[in-house]
Structure formats: structure tokens, C-alpha cells
């Protein structure tokens, strides 16, 4: 029984509850920060800060709650490729719209 558990621990990284609690607190703190920042008068920086904090929170969730930090290289590459493709598609779509008759609809 002990041997079996040791074998699984070697092949499968178990993330400890301590890390989950720290991430939970960081996410709650991030939520408080983003709500607070939304009430400041920052002009064009308001959406930038809100999206930066949201991205920071999302990265914490992906890396720790979703175990990507402890996953195989294949998983890491898959996640990165997906996010890269998403931003490429958004970028190309925006480039297309910006370079046409913007706001003429």
C-alpha cells in the first residue's frame, strides 16, 4: 500500500492544500484590487488595469488550480499554443476592422 502510494506520488504531482489556500487569498485580493481600481479616475488606463489584473488572476488559476505548473511539457505547450492562437486570431480580426471604414456602420 505504501509502495503504491509512493509510486503514484512519483508519477503524479499532488498539489498541497497550502498552495490552494494561498492562491485563494491571492485571487480574493486581486478581486478587491480590481474593484477598487475601477472606481479610480484613470481614463484609458482603467480597462488596461482591469484586464491586467484579470489576466494575473487567470494565470494563477491556470498554473496552480489547473496544475499546469506541475504538468508535462506537452500540456504546457498545448496551453501556450492555444492562448497564442487566440491572441493571433483576435489580433488579425482587429487589424482587419481597424484598417477598413472604422465606425462607418
Amino acid at each position, binding site marked *: 500500500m505504501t*509502495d*503504491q502510494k509512493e*509510486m*503514484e506520488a512519483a*508519477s*503524479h504531482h*499532488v*498539489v*498541497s*492544500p497550502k498552495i*490552494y*489556500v494561498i*492562491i*485563494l487569498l491571492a*485571487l*480574493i485580493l486581486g*478581486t478587491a484590487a*480590481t*474593484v477598487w481600481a*475601477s*472606481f*479610480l*479616475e*484613470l481614463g484609458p488606463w*482603467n*480597462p488596461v488595469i*482591469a*484586464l491586467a*489584473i*484579470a489576466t494575473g*488572476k*487567470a494565470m494563477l*488559476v*491556470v498554473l*496552480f*488550480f*489547473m*496544475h499546469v505548473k506541475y*504538468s*508535462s511539457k*506537452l*500540456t504546457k505547450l*498545448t*496551453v501556450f499554443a*492555444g*492562448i497564442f*492562437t*487566440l491572441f493571433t*486570431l*483576435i489580433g488579425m*480580426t*482587429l487589424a482587419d*476592422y481597424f484598417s477598413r471604414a*472604422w*465606425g462607418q*456602420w
Partner: protein
Amino acid sequence: MSDSTAIVHGAHEADAHEEHPAYLRHHFENVEQQADAAGFAMWLFLLTEVMFFGGLFTAYLIYRNWYYPAFVAASHQLSVVWGTTNTAVLIFSSFTMAMGVWCAETRRRKGLILSLCLTFLLGLVFLGIKTIEYGEKIEKHHVPGFHYNLSSFLDPDNDAAAKAANDKPLPLDMARHTEVYFSLYFAMTGMHALHMIIGIAILGYMIFRARAGAYTTGHVTFVENFGLYWHFVDIVWIYLFALLYLISRHQ
């Protein structure tokens, strides 16, 4: 001497048999490879979901830039208090789900059932708050369609939410574009809520199975991959909260 060797040899064979549990499918080399393959497949599915929500987010980005005053005024109709509460609820549910995965990995049956039940309840709380928010929109005729009402945007002084945000009256053509904001609001939060409903249904099934002792025998793939799905839904909400509720507070 030779006898003891035979005994050690026999014990080793018994160990070797235990190393190949019943849940290991025959086309995989070992448990690790099987878990990796399942996790990889789950991520591929989640990436199709990312693309799907990505399309909605891009549409929101473009329309918000086109009809900026309408999107600002319309977003002032959302309650930051409800939005923040729901964000906290969903983050807590992600935490309880992560704890559920840990309980499954360390074979704690009671802990797993408790974690799954808490996640289930927090999911329902989220949907309950969403129902209250949708109810407010229905009451004010902010649901796109034949009964859509522009008065909050043409006459903001007679609308509590618009007045609190110091909104100026919009010209009629711009006020009509608030309907685009609410179309995207309902499309995005509605698709998100549908994912929550599907997740809660699967959680119910998992609680039922966990009570029978499933997932705590070393085979945690189902709980782990459901956890990935639940955290993904959480991430979508983190962005929805920022984009729909927060970024137009002060314009």
C-alpha cells in the same frame, strides 16, 4: 537461504501485479501515460471552448469601440455589488473544487464528498444571484427585443442606476445601440451560465458516485478533468466581470 530468496521473489511478483490496477486500459503503457493522455485531451477540449468564448469577447471589443457612449451608459445598469459577490462565490467554488481534487488524490472519501457538495452549493448561489440580476433587467425592459425600453438612456435623471453614475442623456441613435450591449451581455453571461448548469449537473452525478466510493481508489482522472472544466468556467467569469461590470465605471 534459497527459501528466503523464493519468498522475496514471490512478494515482488505480488507487488508487480498491484502496479497494474483494473482502471488501466490495455492500450496504455502505465497509469501515468493514461492520465497524461486524458489531461491532454481535456485541454484540447478546453481550447475549443477558449476559441468559442474568444469570438464573443472579440465581438464585444469591436462593438464597445464603435458604440462607446452606449456601452458605457449600458454597463452602468449592472450592479458592481452583485458582480463582485458572484466573482468571490466563483473563486471560492474553484478553491473547493481544487480541494476536491486533492481529497481524491489522497483518497479522502468524506473530504471529497464535502468538497463536491460545497462546489455544487456555491455554483447554485452563483446562478441564484445571476437570476436576481436577470430579473432586474427584465423588469426594466433591458432585454433586447420588441419590448426593449430606452428611457434609462434618453432620460437618465429618472433612472436610479444612471443617475448614480452621472449619465448624460444619449442621442436617440446612440441610445438604440445600448441594445447591442445587452445582446452581448445576455449572450456571454448566458453561455457562461449554461456552462455552470452543465457543471452543476455533472457535480451532482459525481457526488452520487463519490458516495459509492468512486474516485478515491487511485483513479482520479474524472475528478481532475472536471476540475479543469470548472476552473476554466471560473476564468471566463473573471474576464466577463472585468469587461462587463468594471471597465466603464468612470467614463
